[in-house]
């Protein structure tokens, strides 16, 4: 069976050029269908992203995180969290996904805001939902949850119905206000 979406051929030539430019060992590659994923350690992320933007014309379109705690078949050596950066080349319509893993107790990644300004809010959302800190982010505050919220709701060890935050929410009556 083929996919519903017309899959573009993997940008093999582009991948070879990126590999040649960056040298071996900077990233490892995996792919599924037309998604080509480059796994890159946090220390090399900004460098690779800058090269991809300046020399290969890629731009960020999507940024998000995932928590793999308890994911079936995942090796214990893997990172607990992964952040994905979907890049798009507007001229050639090639897509590329950068993935970077982090683990407790110090989930920290460098920020990509200096490379693409649009990463600002999306990194804030990942911080809000997973507690991943983006080092160097100009304004890393919670964005969707209230500021006084303590947990990170999209982590797998956070229950669907919360930990009673809603019931214990401070109530301000008309008389108090």
């Amino acid at each position, binding site marked *: *069976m*083929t*996919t*519903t*979406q*017309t899959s*573009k051929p993997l940008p093999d030539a582009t991948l070879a050029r990126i590999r040649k430019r960056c040298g071996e060992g900077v990233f490892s590659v995996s792919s*599924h*269908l037309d*998604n080509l994923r480059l796994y890159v350690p946090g220390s090399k992320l900004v460098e690779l992203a800058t090269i991809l933007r300046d020399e290969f014309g890629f*731009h*960020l*379109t*999507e940024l*998000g*995180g*995932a*928590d793999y705690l308890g*994911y*079936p*078949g995942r090796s214990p050596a893997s990172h607990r969290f992964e952040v*994905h950066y*979907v890049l*798009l080349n*507007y001229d050639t*319509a090639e*897509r590329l*996904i950068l993935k970077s893993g982090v683990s407790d107790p110090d989930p920290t990644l460098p920020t990509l*805001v*200096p490379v*693409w*300004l*649009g*990463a*600002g*809010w*999306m990194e804030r*959302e990942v911080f809000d*939902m997973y507690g991943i800190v983006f080092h160097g982010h*100009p*304004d890393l505050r*919670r*964005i*969707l*949850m*209230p500021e006084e919220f303590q947990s990170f*709701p*999209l982590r797998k060890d956070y229950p*669907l119905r919360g930990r009673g935050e809603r019931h214990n929410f401070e109530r301000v009556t008309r008389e108090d206000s």
Partner: protein
Amino acid sequence: MPVNLLDEPDIQAENRDYHWTLNFGPQHPATHTTLRLVLELEGETILNAIPDIGYLHSGFEKLGEHLNLNQYVTVVDRKNYISPPMNEVAWHNAVEKLLEIEITPRCKYIRVMIGELARISDHLLCTGAAALDLGAFTAFLFAFNLREMIYDIYEEMSGYRFHPGYTRTGGVMFDFTERVTDRIEKFLVTLPKILTDMEKLLFRNKIFIERMRGVGVLSKADAMAYCASGPIARASGVTYDLRKDEPYLSYSDFEFDVPYATEGDCYARFHVRMEEMVQSARILRQALDKLPSGPVNVPIADKFPMPDKGTTYGSMEGLIQHFELVMPNRGFQTPKKEVYAAVEGPSGELGYYLICDGTQVAWRTRTRPPAFVHFQLFPHMIKNHMISDIVAVLGSLNIIAAELDR
């Protein structure tokens, strides 16, 4: 060069006594939904706008990790509730890509049609409300009245007016009947008249044009740096359209143009949306004419679709398949894979980063919400404009709070 966020003026700096702060929203009628802005003003000029969002956060992505792939379609409906079918198309596009299901040609056409109807419905509200906020009430009534016809089509095809929940893994809930296509035919006759009426009202209206032109300018470099997509990016000269450049469903069968502008102001965005409706109508016309016959769902032997009543009660395979899908802890298998798939939504790239873990319930359903990505442009676009320009810029960005906060 893109403006650098890091160069923002220091809010704590001294000698700013003449600046004042205004709270805008979250229940201001011009924000339409629950948006809050904290504005720093000098007189009526905006020096800085700080959006504060999250008032409508409902944990949709967490819910996606507890509902199965078909149940979640009712939740994606409620993200961009101005164009629910487009969310469904985007969601099942990602699901079917991950499961490697090839849907039938008829289903592809039907999904193109409901998607384009949703796009028209979204653009009608966006352009209508943009006019309403600038005082042109009649244009809004014309647009909103026409959306009623689109709701009637939804009702005819699925039984629900607002949130159809129409797509299913491997197909759609019900096939299109003649009554649905008749309604779409009638709609296609009415649409150009209404668009002409709106154009007559607005495009020679000096007040409207002066409040839109040159306001909220977004350069091409900024559009790309800020991840803008859809009509907002196209109004700034980024001519990317997923329907043309990465054709999904059956978009490669249709002839249509991608409207774009280079000015990047509110007026350009308004024009791009008006023209996109004309192009969507073209696609609808061709899809109606070429609508293939044949089955609408993949065969039940594939184990994905819910069989209809006749098959369930009339055949053993149908009964077994129905049982498998409705009983908890059964259902179809998913690969332990992840995939990103996007479609061209009404306000930009609408994508899902979907991770499955072998069960019918997704591990992670990350939405790429165009409204969220576009709203961070707002402080940049509104800087050094007047308070009254806020409604023009907000209206042209088409921020839907349910999608923004999810």
